[in-house]
């Protein structure tokens, strides 16, 4: 019994980090109706940045947040401004912005393979003060790095909720996502909102990258499994919904760890995809999705 509780809690810890990457994806989709396929690659960029920061300076791993998060914010901001915006503008009135989706896939390919070219294919592990440390709670053991990661995720989730609900900028973001034209008529500059939201989405990846590096391998295609899980999570939680993304992440995390108690780890991966397809059949709008969004 205690083993199951332990694995459920471990699932929640890891799942909240999945949720964090999914939050970035869902923010961008909610406002621009574009699925950013390069999301995992941006996480990878963040992980390499955090890895090199930690390895070269030897500081506390969580200090990397101060450097990596702004770095990825501007990375996303300018990626949207320079590459995505002109393509997005051209098909603004098309119902299905396919060109933008495929361009983000192109960015994914360029980033992943550039990393492969520059850093090589080997798996790297950052040696930090929290790496490999376990915490005992009532005869159950949890990795310290995952607990800190889940804690940071929780704080960020609360902040994002406050930001979207109460801040002036957050209100502008929500207005744009509800009705582009009406928001423009109210004096909200769309292109600026898009840049900021893209930057924020990528900054979420930056936070996730920093909390992952102390206990996860860093390699050029590390983004791919996270990317695909993030896709599953956002559909599960409802494309465009922030609480849905975090809850979806936790559900996926629990399926993964509890499933591993009964079957080989490769089968749990399968279970996630099957679960995803079932959700699409039964409730395509996801747990928190708005009907209008699909």
């Amino acid at each position, binding site marked *: 019994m205690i083993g199951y509780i332990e694995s459920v809690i471990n699932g929640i810890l890891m799942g909240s980090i999945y949720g964090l990457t999914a939050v970035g994806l869902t923010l961008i*989709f909610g406002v621009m*109706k*574009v*699925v950013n396929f390069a999301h995992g690659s941006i996480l990878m960029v963040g992980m390499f940045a955090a890895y090199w920061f930690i390895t070269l300076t030897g500081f506390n791993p969580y200090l990397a947040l101060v450097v990596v998060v702004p770095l990825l914010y501007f990375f996303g901001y300018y990626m949207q401004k320079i*590459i995505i915006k*002109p*393509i997005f503008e*051209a*098909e603004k009135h098309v*119902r*299905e*912005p*396919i*060109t933008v*989706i*495929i*361009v983000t*896939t*192109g*960015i*994914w*390919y*360029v980033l*992943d*393979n*550039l990393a*492969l*070219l520059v850093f090589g*294919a080997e798996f790297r592990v950052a040696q930090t003060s929290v790496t490999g440390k376990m915490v005992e709670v009532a005869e159950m053991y949890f990795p310290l790095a995952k607990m800190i990661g889940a804690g940071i995720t929780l704080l960020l989730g609360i902040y994002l909720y406050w930001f979207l609900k109460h801040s002036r900028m957050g209100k502008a973001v929500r207005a744009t996502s509800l009705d582009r034209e009406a928001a423009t008529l109210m004096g909200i500059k769309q292109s600026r909102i898009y840049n900021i939201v893209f930057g924020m989405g990528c900054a979420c990846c930056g936070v996730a990258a920093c909390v992952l590096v102390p206990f996860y391998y860093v390699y050029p295609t590390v983004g*791919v499994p996270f990317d*695909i899980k993030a*896709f*599953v999570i956002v*559909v599960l939680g409802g*494309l465009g919904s922030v609480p849905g993304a975090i809850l979806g992440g936790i559900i996926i995390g629990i399926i993964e760890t509890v499933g591993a108690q009964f079957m*080989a780890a*490769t*089968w749990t*991966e*399968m279970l996630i*995809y*099957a679960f*995803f*397809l079932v959700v*699409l*059949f039964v409730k*395509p709008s996801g747990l928190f999705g708005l009907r209008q*969004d*699909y």
Partner: protein
Amino acid sequence: MKFLSNVQTTHKVFAALVLAVLYALPIFITSPVMLQIFILIFLYAYLTSSWNFVGGFAGVLPLGHSAFVGLGAYTSTLLYLTYNISPWIGMIAGGIVAAAFGLLIGLPTLKLRGAYFALATIAFAEGLRVLVENVEKLGPFEVRGPKGLLINLVGNSFKDFQFLSKVPYYYIILTMLVLVLILTFFMMRSKVGYYLAAGGEEPEAAEALGIKVSKYKLIAMAISCFLTALGGTFYAQLVLYFYPKSIMGLDMSYEIAFIALIGGRSTIMGPVLGAFLLRPVGELTRIYLGDTLPGLHLIIFGLVLIIVMRYQPRGLVEPVSRWLNILFDRIEKRRRA
């Protein structure tokens, strides 16, 4: 030949000329390496043209077509290895299996926004790959999980779909490509084609006119998956050894989509143009640079894609056909004069 009446004579002559050159090519090119490059170009042009039925005409973005390549390859090869059924029959069986799976995926997702469909196809393809990697035995079939399938070499045999020379493969895939292009031509001028075009651009308006858009999208999906699986069987017989990552991986799905978009989706010649531009980049960098610069061709693919989408969002087939038309008009004028 009424359907050809609105095609200019110069166009017909040009098309016939290109076909004649391509069919005569193996007489001049004897190097197996060069032939293999051409075979792969045609194969990707074929797969992309099949993709085009749903990705182009139905106006959605499928990103998991390697799943159907894999279904075709696995179905025909397993039937051949277990019951010694000729891959030519297995090819059709694979097509039917793939079409059935395509309908299953399309049914819930084609009604939704395009992003859902793109995500669902990726999840399906990856899920299927993981599934195949975990299955050693399925009833009487030896699937062999991640080790993949090996087709025994039996020498030249049409029944077994095996040839020692590359030339028969060249002619088979070229003919398959020509047939699928003819099918695309008819499809574009058929009721289904017009319904799809209307449904892709203005689904609400099309529905209001009484067109069941999702029904026609499903038909397109089934055709597309069927044709893609035939390409999968061809690939299996060409390489004779494949495993889940090589045939159902995301890379192949993306390459198909990249070729379609760079060439020009929902056009007949776009996939062919895209394959002729992109495939050689992959092959040549692999031959000349080998492993020294891994992934370089994928960086080039990505950059070409971003640049083309930025300046020619409808694909490169548009400027190319514009130049060709100017050329044709000049020839036509000279002929008349």
